[in-house]
């Protein structure tokens, strides 16, 4: 049964219309005054904006961009090693896991190395991608990530949405101390090798909110600030 609303008849003050309207005019005028005469805080983190003067919460999109939440799955990237080659070993795990079948890989052998493979072609059709992140989960080498925080740029033709390895290979390089090219030796010159070793870190066994440590942005901080604001507002 639908809930009942109290069918109260309007009292004299309410049925006079005008007093309530005058009151409302005051409210709208105050809002107008604040927004028209004071500049807006353009902080892309909308929750952290200073709303004491202007209360405008607009983010003028192409010029300003909201910082995405830490779990945001953006455009893919192929993670490079410190020497600029992709970490990918062309194992086809991501292409197999992909429910949209948008990943196409052609494997090639690394010259002079009996074991190593590398992708001569690594193509993702971003129009077919369903942004599920399974490829990232499936990758045994941490070679594909969706941590760019971007979305595919709009294009005028479909071909522009097909990203090959040249466009995908970007971002900060990642090294781990178990990386085979660090352990087995490599054809790289010694100084570069040393640099890669220095950058290497142990692979994290526990999942952690890596982005929460990014200076200036943290989902937890945002949430706690919003909670504090709400509590302050209630008092």
């Amino acid at each position, binding site marked *: 049964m639908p809930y009942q609303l109290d069918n109260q008849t309007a009292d004299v*003050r309410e049925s*006079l*219309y*005008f*007093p*309530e*309207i*005058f*009151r*409302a*005019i*005051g*409210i*709208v*005028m105050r*809002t*107008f005054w604040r*927004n*028209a*005469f*004071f*500049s*807006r805080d353009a902080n892309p983190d909308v929750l952290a904006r200073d709303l004491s003067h202007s*209360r*405008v*919460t*607009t983010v*003028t999109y192409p010029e300003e961009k909201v910082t995405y939440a830490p779990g945001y799955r953006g455009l893919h990237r192929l993670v490079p090693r410190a020497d600029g080659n992709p970490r990918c070993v062309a194992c086809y795990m991501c292409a197999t896991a992909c429910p949209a079948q948008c990943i196409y890989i052609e494997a090639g052998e690394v010259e002079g190395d009996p074991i190593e493979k590398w992708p001569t072609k690594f193509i993702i059709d971003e129009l077919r991608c369903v942004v599920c992140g399974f490829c990232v989960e499936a990758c045994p080498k941490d070679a594909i990530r969706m941590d760019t925080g971007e979305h595919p740029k709009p294009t005028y033709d479909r071909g522009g949405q097909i990203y090959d390895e040249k466009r995908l290979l970007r971002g900060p390089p990642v090294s781990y101390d178990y990386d085979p090219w660090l352990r087995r030796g490599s054809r790289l010159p010694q100084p570069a090798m040393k640099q890669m070793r220095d950058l290497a870190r142990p692979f994290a066994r526990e999942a952690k909110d890596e982005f929460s440590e990014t200076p200036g942005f943290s989902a937890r901080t945002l949430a706690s600030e919003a909670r504090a604001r709400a509590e302050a507002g209630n008092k």
Partner: protein
Amino acid sequence: MKRFVGMWLVIGAVLLGLVLLFMGFYLLAGWAAGVAAWLGAPEFYGSAIANTVTLMAVLLMTVAALLTVAERKWSAAMQDRIGANRIKVFGMALGGVPYLLADALKMLTKEATYPAARSRLLFELAPVMAFAPTFALFAVVPVGPEVELSGRKVALLVANPDVGLLWIFALAGLSVYGTTLAGWASNSRAGLLGGVRAASQMISYEVSLGMSLVGVMLAYKTVNLQDMVIAQGAAVLGPVPALGILLQPLGFLVFFTSSFAETKRAPFDLPEGESEIVGYFVEYSGMKFGMMFLAEFVEVVILAGVVTAVFLGGWHPVFFESWLSNPANVPPLLYGGICAAAFLAKVILLCWLQLVIRWLLPRFRFDQIQALCWKMLLPGALINLFVTGAAVLLDPSLQLLAWIGAAEIVAIFGITAAASRAPATSAGAHDQGHAAHAAGH
């Protein structure tokens, strides 16, 4: 802070620009009067033609067109948004003003589609019938005082007929035809419904519109708008001038509300009703729709103009007026410019107030509209009329009327203040009720 200073600078610059603009209008009117005298015609013909061009074709249309932009930007500010700012001229949004050109271009170049079953003549005639009477209303609104320029008396006023307010009633009545014909001629159910709604709403509100102004006519003993504005400059309570809003606060409320309903804009926009029927102009496209659309904005400006002239002292700057009006301090041409700028400033303020009201009230239901008209505004106007009549009869110097008006204003403020405290107490009572309810269990 930069924006705060900038906004005040813009406002100051606009006011200064208006003063200069109106001085130019005065000079043009004076020159045209001279040409008319040279041709052997009455001087008034020349200044009337010049004023038709400057005031009606330039000023009124510009303000009405700018109001379309202002509606976007002001509405945005009232709703915590930014508003239209994507069209940029050399990287500057210029407060959305370039949208004016974009709108005009769009209206003019859009394909005009016609319903096949329209009644052709009326369909073509309706936009004109909607636009022309509202446009012509402005002819009797006095924008500036009569100023002596090189021996010629020039006023910023297109026509000064003795009928004044009656002209306004007559033409406001005519503008019903445009909307109703538009609805009828387009031979569409939604359009017809909109037209019928417009007719019933506008005809109802015309009654209270007329009645609310009778009190003003009694108080100032004239229906000529220029005389009415001049009468408002006289001091009545000490230094306080006899503004219409002081003598007739109730009349002001009733007139403002009724004429608001006449403009067919929210919250009285039942004839349009975007969510149910698109309205009497649903079948119109291109510039024909543009005419209907513009007519509405012109109506807003004219309503503001009439309210200013009748209730807010018209072109009287109100403050420092005795000093300003002395030719020893301020040359007559500058005085005229300042007065006309004061008039337009009041008009803009009232347009803004209408936008505020547009955003703070949801659309009325049709029975609510009629109830507001017949059960509130009309009795209010009649009471106001009787009280005014009695007060003027007892005290022709208007002192008594001014005291009554002041008492009404105080009462309205008192009730409003009481209303603004009311929700807190009612919420408290509600909580207590809940507590008692819980205790009962």
